[in-house]
Each structure stands twice: as C-alpha cells, then as structure tokens.
C-alpha cells in the first residue's frame, strides 16, 4: 500500500491561526499532564513510604530538570484548565461566533500565562523553590 498521500494531521497545508494553535496545545498539554499525574503518584507513594523516599522525590523536583518540568506542568495544567472551560462553553452552545472564539482564544492564552506567573511568583516569594 502506498503512503504517498498525506495522512491526518497534515498541518503543512494550513496557515497558522491562534485557534488551531490552542487546539493542538490542548492535546499536547493533555498528554503531558498524564505524565504530571504519574509524578504526583510518585510523590504520594514516597510520602506514604518513608522520609528517604520523599527526599529522593523532593531532590528530583528541586533539580533544574525537575523545576523545568514543574514549570511546564504548571503552565500545561492552567492552559488545559482555561481552554477546557472554553470547551465546556462550546458544549453548551455558546461562543461560536468568529469574534467570540478569537477573543476567547486570547483570553485563554493571557490567563494561563498570567496564572502561571502568579503561581510561581507566589512559590518564590514564600520561600523559593525546594
């Protein structure tokens, strides 16, 4: 069987639009957040197991790689949350006018960036990352 014809997703034929960027980001952040859940499971199991297990977990979270992941997970969670609320409005039949979904796109982007900054400012100001 020939695979010369493009299979979905064939993104290269479209110009980039904020709506499609958010649609893709919703999926990407959703997949990424599943990894975040596994980290949370690790943390809870470590907390239940022993202090030394928790120290290993906290050490990972405090490393530069861990911090980078946590920052990415914070942004992913907040973007998926904001955009998810947008999806729920669509499910209720609201916000389908072109001006509305363009505005809501940018509201989601600005809100999730602002909330991520707020969360990390709060973490820094209350004692610095682990």
């Amino acid at each position, binding site marked *: 069987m020939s695979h010369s014809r493009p299979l979905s997703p064939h993104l290269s034929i479209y110009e980039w639009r904020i709506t499609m960027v958010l649609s893709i980001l919703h999926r990407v952040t959703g997949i990424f957040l599943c990894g975040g859940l596994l980290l*949370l*499971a690790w943390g809870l199991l470590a907390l239940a197991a022993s202090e030394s297990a928790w120290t290993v977990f906290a050490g990972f979270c405090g490393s530069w790689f861990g911090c980078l992941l946590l920052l990415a997970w914070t942004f992913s969670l907040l973007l998926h949350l904001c955009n998810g609320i947008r999806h729920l409005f669509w499910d209720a039949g609201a916000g389908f006018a072109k001006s509305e979904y363009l505005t809501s796109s940018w509201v989601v982007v600005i809100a999730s960036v602002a909330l991520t900054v707020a969360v990390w400012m709060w973490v820094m100001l209350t004692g610095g990352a682990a």
Partner: protein
Amino acid sequence: MNAHAQPQDMRTPLKRVRALGSAKSGAGHWWRQRLTAVALVPLALWFVWLAVRLPHLDFASAHALVATPCNTLLLILFTATGFWHGQLGLQVVIEDYVHTRWVELVLLVAIRFLAVAGALACALAALDVWLGVY
C-alpha cells in the same frame, strides 16, 4: 400482497442508530469526558492551592499537610478523576493517530490498566498518609 423478497433482517434502520449510533458507543465517552472535566475544574484549582505550599516543606510538614481528612479526600478525588479524564483523552489521541490496529489495541489496553493502577496507587498512598502512624 408484498411482491418483494423477504428482508433478511427485519429490524428497521432505527434499531441500528438508536442508543449506540454509528460510532458503536453512543455519547458515553463524550459525556464521561465532560463530567470528569467539570469535576476537575474545582479539583485542579484546589490542587494548585495545595501544591504551591509543598515545595517549602520537609517530610514531616508535607506529611502533616496531606494527612487531613479533607485533603486526603480531595487528593483521592483529584487523582481518580484525573487518571480517568487522562485515559479518556489519551484514548482519543491514540484512536486518531495510531493507524496500526494491533499497536492501537495494545496502547488502548495499556492506558486503561495504567489509569486504574495509578488511581488505586494514589488512593492507597493518600489513605496511608492520612491513617498511617509516623
């Protein structure tokens, strides 16, 4: 008298579309995804509120923070709903992009097993932190 040949299947097309529809599963997946999404809005906000305090805590303080009835209950709800919602979402991604049938099937089964195991592990760990003696 009906001159036409006897139909092989006496069920009307309505039988085939009712309940399950052409997708064979009806709106069940869609609806569960929305229900878990609605539940996760307050749960995720609560989790952020809890999680921002954790980086500053040593083992004993982190343990004490999680080990309250309210936080244990909310953690179990958040992780169980989260794993469920994650499984539903990953299922759609796999169904959309994995075009080799057996790989698709293996992945679909694997994420279900992982989601159940993950949710159970989180629930047991949270209960242990709450009820365990340290």
